[in-house]
């Protein structure tokens, strides 16, 4: 079990997991939150002191009704750095968290000097429409999120019975809290204008993408690179949107190149 605590970050009280030793790293998780026995956090912990907050709506973090739009979430991310007493942590965001991390690096360009964006949301390409996560059925998720669907099914539903009404009722509440909150920046089109603010980013940046990402097709990696021309794009074979959990060591190695 990782140690964790509740902290007040700006207008939201959130749970923060802390693990590992090394230079400080703030990790903002994706739409799926932090998994039980999270293998990506474990891989990060080999090299960094990892601070992994649960975003509002996840686990027992507040639902934070006062966070309504992109700026609120961006400031919440900066409030987390402040509340944790961190100085220029390595900022790493995956999926939903990557969208927030990119915005933080644009808004507070002088405070974020190292940035890793792992399959971040935040752009829209008409040629590659992002699947509608909000209309997905529970059993669609492993296929949307993982290259290895069997692994995904095990990680997302291990020990759970999708036919059990009690599980479904809890699932509905968890999903409503998580995606209800995430939906404030992802619904209905997960683009809140980062492309127009990207020019402000000063951080040394790596963009990491699973080559088999069906949720955020790899074309979005190219699009991020066009907006952040100084960044490096690392394509990871045999990995989907949850590249963090399918190839954790490859992702950590890509991050380490910024050290």
């Amino acid at each position, binding site marked *: 079990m990782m140690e964790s605590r509740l902290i007040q970050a700006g207008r939201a009280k959130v749970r923060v997991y802390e693990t590992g030793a090394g230079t400080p790293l703030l990790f903002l998780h994706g739409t799926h939150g932090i998994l039980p026995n999270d293998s990506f956090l474990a891989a990060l912990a080999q090299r960094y002191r990892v601070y992994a907050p649960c975003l509002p709506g996840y686990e027992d973090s507040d*639902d934070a009704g006062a966070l*309504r739009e992109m700026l609120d979430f961006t400031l919440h991310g900066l409030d987390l750095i402040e509340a944790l007493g961190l100085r220029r942590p390595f900022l790493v965001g995956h999926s939903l968290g990557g969208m927030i991390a990119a915005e933080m690096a644009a808004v507070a360009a002088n405070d974020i000097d190292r940035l890793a964006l792992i399959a971040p949301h935040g752009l829209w390409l008409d040629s590659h429409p992002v699947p509608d996560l*909000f*209309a*997905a*059925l529970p059993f669609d998720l492993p296929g949307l999120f993982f290259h290895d669907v069997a692994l995904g099914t095990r990680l997302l539903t291990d020990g759970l019975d999708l036919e059990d*009404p009690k599980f*479904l*009722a809890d699932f*509905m*509440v968890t*999903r*409503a*809290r*998580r*995606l*209800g*909150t995430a*939906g*404030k920046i992802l*619904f*209905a*089109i997960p683009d809140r204008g980062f492309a127009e603010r990207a020019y402000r980013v000063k951080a040394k940046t790596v963009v990491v993408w699973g080559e088999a990402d069906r949720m955020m097709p790899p074309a979005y990696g190219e699009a991020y690179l066009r907006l952040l021309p100084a960044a490096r794009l690392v394509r990871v074979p045999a990995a989907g949107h949850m590249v963090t959990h399918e190839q954790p060591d490859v992702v950590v190695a890509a991050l380490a190149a910024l050290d």
Partner: protein
Amino acid sequence: MRFIWFHLMPWPHLPDDFRETYRSVWVDIPSRLYDPVRGVGIYNTYLDQLEYAETLGFDGLGVNEHHGNAYGMMPSPNLMAAALARRTSRAAIVVMGDSIALYNPPIRVAEEMAMIDVLCGGRMIAGFPVGTSQDTNFAYSTVPALTREKYAEAHQLIMRAWAADEPFAFNGRYTKMRYVNCWPKPLQKPHPPIFIPGGGSIETYDFCLEHEYNYSYLSYTGYTRARALMDGFWARVAEKGKDDSPYRASFAQVICVGATDQEAERLYSEHVSYFYNRCLHVYPPFFDAPGYRTVKTLQAGMITQLTQARHKELPTLAWKDLIERGYIIAGSPATVRERMEDLIKTLRVGQIYCLLHLGNMPDDKVRYSSKLFAEQVIPHLRSIWPAYRNDDRFWCRPPAPVVAPVRVASVGGE
């Protein structure tokens, strides 16, 4: 009792293999299935049916709002209400409603409803639904978790706009207006009666009771399933110390009347089947975008269970099942009378939204069923609530008598 003849205006030409070929009647159904050439006759027939309902003595004519929906072809109920305003003279025009969170700025609702109310001489009832998740979130892209806040703000703006006699500034979170100035204003004072559709959340019960609005439960699954929800409403009425006038509440019911039970089945079963099996074929995730319902409501469990139960049940439902499980009330006038009386007393409601047109039902059958209901059922149910005979708080109040339109002299003066 009051009876509202309520139209959904469905597309009646969904193909036989609709359920197998398409995942949903709503949100992502391809519009190539719509044919505007056929649409001309369909819209006009539907409006004729509403006008006919007035001649039969129905108290209200109901229209509603849906988007991207082949069973509800009124993206703008206000247009249909305006058409009815000019061609009717007595029945209430129940606009159920305008999904007020979807209008930008929402003053548009205050303006258009005021236009309708004046045009029809004060017969309009204003419905203010939050809107289904299908319409509000999926078809119109409102952020689910912000929908209710946006709705509450729109409600506040509209009510202030109707009440004000001077322009005012409105600094809302979603709407900021320097000059809120509703021209024209509604004829009914202080405002038209307001009906709110609800689905079981305590917040909506309280919202209706606080403002003296009517609570409408619009369901297609019949009154036996509605009992727990309406019991919840009436328990809340008692807790709040309000009187228990049945006119506080309304319910929607699918109704088919024939000369005999057998004739009803023979005439209507295929259309009922079209309605339940094609029109209500909705891809389940569209019912509930995450964040649309409050966690409190989800934890109460009722909606999830009902939704699940409904999806499991609907595919196999035939005429007999639909009657036995109470989804529809159908049969001879005597049968329908008995079931309607049971419904009205069980749920304690003062208004019924009568769904007498279903799916692909042809005009002659719609009129036949409606006429039998008006002539042989309604008269027996009229006086079911004698204690509240004079309660007109929840119904339109046209200034009596409704004035004949006054022609305005030409600008030059004569």
